[in-house]
């Protein structure tokens, strides 16, 4: 946790590809899960005695159930294309943080026990026995991967290290060697409904507080409803949105958009979490269990649509997996995709002209946008490929006058992870989080200096928390991170809104021109 434990990399004009320095990060491992946290998820509480055979059996099981794993383990030709693409490698110089270096930790074992060449000519093909040291190495380095998929963009075979990391974590869990952060959180969701362990009454309190704040500020009674049966829309949002900064300003924004759109909506206390850490640990079963809460909430509340708040990996599970894991959602209104992203909803409202927006409300800022890794490379918004990159920018440009993109190699499908995704957003992994943020921090610093950028918008709870924590390490300010819906919230002029604490003569009439 303390800054003194490691050195924050210095920001240069470019991130140079470093020369390899072996084992710079071998010392870093996250806290191991306590037995309860493992057993809650149906994993053995502690490292089992026959871990060797169990781990191999699990690897065998997984490669028979996941084509990605089998094909990816076989297909790598060691071309080196991915070697300089991982933010964790760029920030640490450790070759085992190169995507292929990370994959090989598992591939070596796969080759040794499951391929002809590895069984009979291990030295020739770099196959290695599974030892206790291997396990520790897996535990260390597979928890230094944020499953951001940047490497998969550049792989000629589309090999995705995230899939390998997930498999490795699933193997570790299956022998009782789980990670505290992820497993504790999943257990909390199963018990209480969200990652933070906020029970229903606390949620109700928080939402009531938000209603009061918004009414104080705008004079409009915007509702932030909880467990309202028969509402049109179930909003599922990361629980950080309920209290963390800057997240909560985004939640305020969602409420204002729903209010102006004239739809009824609700949050569910039972499914009060968008994030699904089951993906981080590669567990289909756990991912499904968490997803089914959303299905149950939608059924119990009798909603017609499901909308997800701003969150990265959550949107991946929601967009790409929810229908498969917890569908079919034939009980919802077939006119809308299941689920929808809040940005799809807001962009639709903007296009229809349903929102009155005063862009100048954000004139104190020059914005840039951080594409969240899993949104950019694992999902879509809208009906065209790439909508996940365009729609957030469209919304920002609709509510802000000043927007600049960062360097093109650091955004879009090539975006760099914030450094805290994939189950790494925990203080015991601070070193890798700070070092892994180097490429993003460099790109941000550059647009700050060259284009006068003051703020960076993000659409992921993890990105927001991570940047808030990491920016100060690089000499920047934690308040530079904003939600897109915070910007929307600033710009939106609610119907019947009083003009607030500035001038009285403008902005309070419904028919005012928002751009005037």
């Amino acid at each position, binding site marked *: 946790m303390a800054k003194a434990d490691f050195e924050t990399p210095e920001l240069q004009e470019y991130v140079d*590809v470093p020369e*390899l320095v072996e084992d710079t990060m071998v010392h870093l491992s996250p806290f191991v899960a306590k037995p309860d946290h493992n057993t809650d998820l149906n994993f053995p509480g502690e490292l089992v005695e026959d871990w060797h055979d169990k781990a191999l059996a699990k690897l065998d099981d997984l*490669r*028979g*159930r*996941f*084509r*990605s794993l*089998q*094909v990816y383990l*076989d*297909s*790598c*030709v*060691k*071309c*080196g*294309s991915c*070697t300089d693409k991982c933010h964790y490698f760029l920030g640490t110089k450790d*070759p085992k943080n*190169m995507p*292929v*270096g990370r994959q*090989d930790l598992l591939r070596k074992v796969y080759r040794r026990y499951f*391929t002809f*060449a590895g069984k009979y*000519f291990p030295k*020739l*093909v*770099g196959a290695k026995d599974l030892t206790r040291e291997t396990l520790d190495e897996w535990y260390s380095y597979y928890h230094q991967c944020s499953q951001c998929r940047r490497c*998969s*963009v*550049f*792989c*000629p*075979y*589309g*090999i*995705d290290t995230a*899939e390998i990391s997930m498999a490795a974590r699933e193997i570790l869990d299956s022998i009782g060697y789980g990670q505290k952060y992820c497993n504790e959180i999943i257990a909390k969701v199963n018990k209480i409904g969200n990652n933070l362990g906020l029970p229903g009454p606390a949620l109700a309190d928080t939402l009531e507080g938000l209603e009061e704040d918004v009414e104080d500020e705008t004079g409009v009674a915007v509702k932030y409803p909880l467990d309202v049966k028969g509402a049109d829309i179930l909003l599922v949002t990361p629980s950080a949105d309920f209290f963390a900064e800057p997240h909560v300003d985004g939640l305020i924004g969602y409420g204002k958009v729903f209010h102006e759109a004239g739809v009824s909506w609700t949050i569910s206390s039972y499914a009060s979490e968008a994030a699904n850490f089951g993906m981080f640990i590669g567990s289909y079963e756990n991912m499904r269990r968490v997803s089914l809460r959303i299905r149950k909430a939608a059924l119990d509340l009798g909603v017609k649509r499901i909308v997800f708040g701003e969150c990265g990996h959550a949107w991946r599970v929601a*967009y*790409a*997996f929810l*229908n*498969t894991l917890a*569908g*079919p959602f034939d009980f919802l209104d077939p006119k809308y*995709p299941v*689920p929808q992203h809040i940005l799809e909803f807001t962009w639709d409202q903007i296009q229809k002209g349903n929102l009155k927006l005063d862009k100048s409300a954000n004139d104190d800022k020059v914005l840039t946008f951080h594409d969240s890794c899993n949104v950019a490379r*694992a*999902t*879509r918004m809208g*009906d*065209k*490929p*790439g909508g*996940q*990159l365009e729609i957030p920018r469209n919304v920002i440009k609709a509510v802000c006058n000043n927007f600049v993109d960062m360097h093109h190699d650091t955004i879009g*499908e*090539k975006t760099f992870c914030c450094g805290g995704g994939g189950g790494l957003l925990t203080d015991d992994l601070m070193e890798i989080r700070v070092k892994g943020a180097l490429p993003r921090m460099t790109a941000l610093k550059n647009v700050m200096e060259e284009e006068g950028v003051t703020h960076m918008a993000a659409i992921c709870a993890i990105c927001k928390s991570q940047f808030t924590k990491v920016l100060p390490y690089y000499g920047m300010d934690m308040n530079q991170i904003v939600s897109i819906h915070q910007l929307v919230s600033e710009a939106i002029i609610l119907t019947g809104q009083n003009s607030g604490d500035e001038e009285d003569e403008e902005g309070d009439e419904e028919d005012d021109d928002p751009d005037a």
Partner: protein
Amino acid sequence: MSLFFSLLFIVAALVMVIGLARKIVQYARTPAPLKIPTTPAPVTRAGVVLRLFREVVFFESLFKSTKWTWLFGWMFHLGLLLVLLRHLRYFTDPVWLPIQLIQPFGVYAGFAMVIGLVGLLVRRIFIDRVRYISAPSDFLWLAILIIIGFSGLMMKFVAHTDVVMVKEFFTGLMGLHFETLPLDFPLIVHLLLVALLMLLFPFSKLLHVPGIFFSPGRNQVDNPRERRHLAPWAKAMEEQQN
């Protein structure tokens, strides 16, 4: 000696075909339980075919990444393709017109192939990141391919082999008639290594050839909201739990 080569090539061909078929069956039978295309991804089947085409023919993703590796890799693969097509003349009689027409290009392709391979080898030796991830087999593959290419070019430009005999040998072999081979040193090296390559194909990283077509990151349609994508084992689990 010729008999040895006859038997060797029969075994090598069988191992390669059966071995590859088994891997392809394995890939095809292993379910992909979730939609994981690297996005932005095509939303239609036709789009996926186009994406794979660009990937297989132009090495699109590699091009995005490292221009030198792309250049050498693409030179090698395209060269190899033309060389293989050129070699069809040893297996067909009469030789198809398109194969006749590419004969001169096939020769240039032989050079391109070897240059590409040498480029890849230099890269593997001198770039620390690539050297770190290389096993002995990764160097050996390059060496095998370079020697195959070099010995082939030797026969074309330095020490001619009796290609008519070679053709008789292989066309005969295809009908299981064992003919004699001209026993020239470059030819023996050439054929031994080609047979070795065929034997090892299904057990090595050459599996990237079928692998690319089965990579969920590249071959999936991006339509998870429209359609469920339930694997058989996931369906069974669902039925058991519900």
